[in-house]
């Protein structure tokens, strides 16, 4: 807020607004000067197997296979998963690990496809307007098989969200609040009718009662195009709502608050308050899947920033090397410094352009020092508790205290202050006068907590395993001892001398017992507690008796003398 013309601190302006947020320089004009261009075909495409949130699909092809454009390469596996299709016709060169844009930076399985430039499509049977006759289940199946995921950036499989139970409101998100990005803006300008058609398909699936298309007020042309499309559509079912330009109004939770006045529970989903939110590009992809049987094999990507020669939006196949996209846009300028996939607030820096465009690549931003100075040093000023971060936090958290506890690794306190309510929007980071990389601290804390959780689970499992092993070992030991004992006994039996001695003893005992019994039978009164005695004891008793008798006898002899 110091540079007043650049930052604006929002406030809780009532029900249809969210707390905090910031006004950011848009830089959208940079990439909206020309219509969406079609990216020419490349020779080789690298299509990652897992470009979405959820499980990897099940691979249907193998290296050497010839594939057609739109052919399914992997089918969804499990509840939350997405299909992958070939963007071109050609040959699968290999299915191997390659790096692709992902926070981990790790290599993962990818289909590497050599384009045969014949552009041969797989056989398609579009549903078209007949979709109205289909049930929700079938439509969801079509969307699922088209590999459609949320194209706003999250990449959550679209069909999974489209439950038809209890959803009343469908929100189509055309807000696109991050600076520089304009792919949704351009899509709305050029394909408003298709977006509306897609929205109606989704609405039918989820049996929505109303549908709102939300657009930020800094996109007048998109607003015009969409409102015209809504007027042309005679259903009267779809509404347009223009929302103020405040970052992050395009965040799902924030947008739902603006439109409905309701808050998605912190640990819940929009469905919990009967809302489903889809991006305009997702709606467009669904339209293509239903009306043209085109799976998600291409998307519109904003190539922008002062580091590219001619910023613009391009329609490009998934799997296209980023390098080629930039080249198509005139290449880099000399002062290009950083390559960001996504926006400058929540995007991901890429260390190389030799990575493919994936389903969630909405923007490739090449920055120069003119655009932004990348946070250079690791050192920052101490927190002066100014509270600016508190004022801008759309999740209404206390970032300053979260920072304190995150830096201290006092995770319990951080969780108590709802660390997991943080949407990592970066507003706090942006305004912090001490330049503390707050979001980085929060991300570390979150992964630290997950790590602990995993460790705990692992150690639980390990302990269980250990105990099991212990029990197994004990049992084995017992068995072994048992076996040894038996063996020893068997050995002992084998030795005659032993056996004789043993037999003698046994005979003696048996003798004694017999005598005792005899005595007992003679004497009804029990003289001694001879019951429940062991054989040895009995033997001793018997011996003692014998001695006593002997003595008596001797004495008796003497007496008699």
């Amino acid at each position, binding site marked *: 807020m110091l540079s007043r013309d650049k930052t604006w601190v929002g406030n809780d302006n009532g029900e249809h607004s969210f707390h905090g947020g910031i006004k950011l320089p848009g830089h959208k004009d940079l990439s909206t000067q020309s219509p969406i261009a079609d990216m020419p075909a490349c020779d080789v495409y690298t299509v990652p197997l897992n470009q979405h949130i959820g499980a990897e699909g099940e691979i249907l092809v193998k290296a050497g296979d010839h594939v057609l454009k739109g052919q399914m390469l992997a089918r969804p596996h499990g509840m939350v998963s997405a299909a992958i299709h070939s963007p071109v016709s050609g040959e699968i060169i290999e299915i191997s690990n390659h790096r692709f844009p992902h926070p981990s930076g790790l290599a993962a399985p990818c289909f590497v496809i050599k384009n045969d430039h014949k552009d041969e499509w797989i056989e398609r049977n579009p549903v078209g307007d007949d979709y109205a006759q289909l049930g929700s289940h079938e439509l969801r199946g079509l969307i699922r098989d088209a590999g459609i995921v949320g194209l706003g950036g999250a990449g959550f499989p679209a069909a999974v969200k489209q439950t038809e139970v209890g959803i009343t409101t469908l929100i189509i998100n055309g807000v696109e609040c991050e600076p520089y990005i304009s792919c949704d803006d351009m899509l709305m300008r050029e394909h408003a009718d298709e977006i509306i058609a897609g929205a109606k398909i989704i609405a039918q699936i989820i049996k929505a009662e109303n549908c709102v298309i939300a657009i930020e007020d800094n996109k007048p042309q998109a607003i015009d195009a969409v409102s015209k499309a809504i007027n042309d559509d005679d259903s009267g079912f779809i509404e347009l709502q223009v929302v103020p330009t405040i970052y992050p109004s395009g965040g799902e939770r924030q947008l739902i608050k603006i439109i409905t006045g309701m808050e998605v529970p912190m640990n819940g989903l929009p469905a919990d308050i009967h809302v489903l939110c889809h991006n305009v590009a997702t709606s467009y992809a669904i339209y293509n899947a239903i009306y043209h049987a085109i799976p998600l094999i291409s998307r519109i990507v904003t190539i922008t920033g002062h580091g590219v020669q001619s910023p613009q939006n391009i329609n490009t196949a998934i799997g296209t090397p980023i390098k080629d996209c930039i080249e198509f846009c005139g290449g880099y300028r000399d002062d290009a410094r950083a390559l960001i996939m996504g926006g400058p607030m929540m995007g991901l820096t890429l260390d190389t352009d030799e990575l493919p465009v994936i389903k969630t690549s909405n923007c490739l931003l090449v920055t120069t020092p003119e655009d932004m100075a990348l946070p250079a040093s690791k050192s920052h000023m101490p927190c002066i508790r100014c*509270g600016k971060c508190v004022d801008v936090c759309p999740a209404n958290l206390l970032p300053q205290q979260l920072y304190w506890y995150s830096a201290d690794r006092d995770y319990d306190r951080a969780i108590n202050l709802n660390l997991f309510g943080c949407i990592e929007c970066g507003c706090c980071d942006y305004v912090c006068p001490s330049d503390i990389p707050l979001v980085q601290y929060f991300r570390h804390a979150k992964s630290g907590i997950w790590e602990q959780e995993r460790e705990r689970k692992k150690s639980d499992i390990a302990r269980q395993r250990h105990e099991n092993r212990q029990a197994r070992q004990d049992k084995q030991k017992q068995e072994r001892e048992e076996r040894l004992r038996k063996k020893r006994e068997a050995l002992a039996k084998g030795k005659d001398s032993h056996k004789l001695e043993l037999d003698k003893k046994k005979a003696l005992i048996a003798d004694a017992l017999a005598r005792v019994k005899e005595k007992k039978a003679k004497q009804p009164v029990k003289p001694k507690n001879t019951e429940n005695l062991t054989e040895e004891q009995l033997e001793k008793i018997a011996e003692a008796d014998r001695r006593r008798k002997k003595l008596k006898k001797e004495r008796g002899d003497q007496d008699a003398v």
Partner: protein
Amino acid sequence: MLFKKADAPYLKDYSNVQSMMLKVIYALIPGSIAMFWFFGWGVLFNLAIAISVCLASEAMMLKFRRRPVEPALKDGSALVTACLLALALPPLAPWWLVAIASLFAIVVAKHLYGGLGFNPFNPAMVGYVVVLISFPREMTLWTPPLGVAGGWPSFTDAVAIVFGSGISTQALDAITMATPIDILKTHINMEHDIEYVRTHKVYGELFGPVTGVGWEWINGLYLAGGLWLIKQGVIDKRIPISFIISLVLISNFLSVLDYASYSSALFHTLSGGTMLAAFFIATDPVTASTTPRGRIIYGAGIAAIAYIIRNWGGYPDGIAFAVLLMNMAAPLLDQYTQPRTFGKSEAKS
């Protein structure tokens, strides 16, 4: 092509601690000029002494603590502490008093607690209170404002008073005078009413139509500077607004009940260090509460305590104590005023 990696967000606001502190200094300028106008050279001496001692001890402490000296000196926080302290101390305070207060503020209240951002107590107010308790007589060495009882002493007299013992106690008594707030309290405790003081042949001259002569100007200009700071986003409006509203409510309530013994709300808001405290001292972010609701309570708390000390306490103005007491309460306030997180049904305490 290869690129550097970094962590989102990559965009940054242009604000930084240094520019915030500088703006605080700018905002203090009009009020300080008014102070100088009405109270003379002593104000400038105070500023000069406090600034040099604060900066020197800041540098010294940073060296001791093996911290980089230059960036910390540049952040301007020690400068702000020095200015606030200098403007709060009486203009004819001896140089060593200002120096001791400055030293305490920076060395003990700031650095021994861990430096900027870690000090629980407002350094300027700690310095102020230390000398207030240790040297109560010197702390009343205010000059009569311009145009009253001969006005402020000449440059040479001021130098003699501040830097030497070149002036006798009697002579000193002749040119110093307590502040209007102090005089009122003393007399009201002696069962005189406000009217008696205002028409008194010696003190009466000190009072203008609203408050003490000059003080409405000084406070008015601090108010203006403070409003500019709010507009610039440097300080949070909640603390000053709740401070001023609470002070008005409390003083108005009592003066309506008994106008003879309790001064009006206007008198209180435009007297002594009220506006300096409201916009510059209570808003020190490091030592204030950080939650929105916490800040409202924090401001109100300072007003209430300051009012109590002003009227019934043993010290001339209670703002310093009020600020320190609320500093102590700030962590607790933060804990119990946590805002309701988005999507949570109710705030946890």
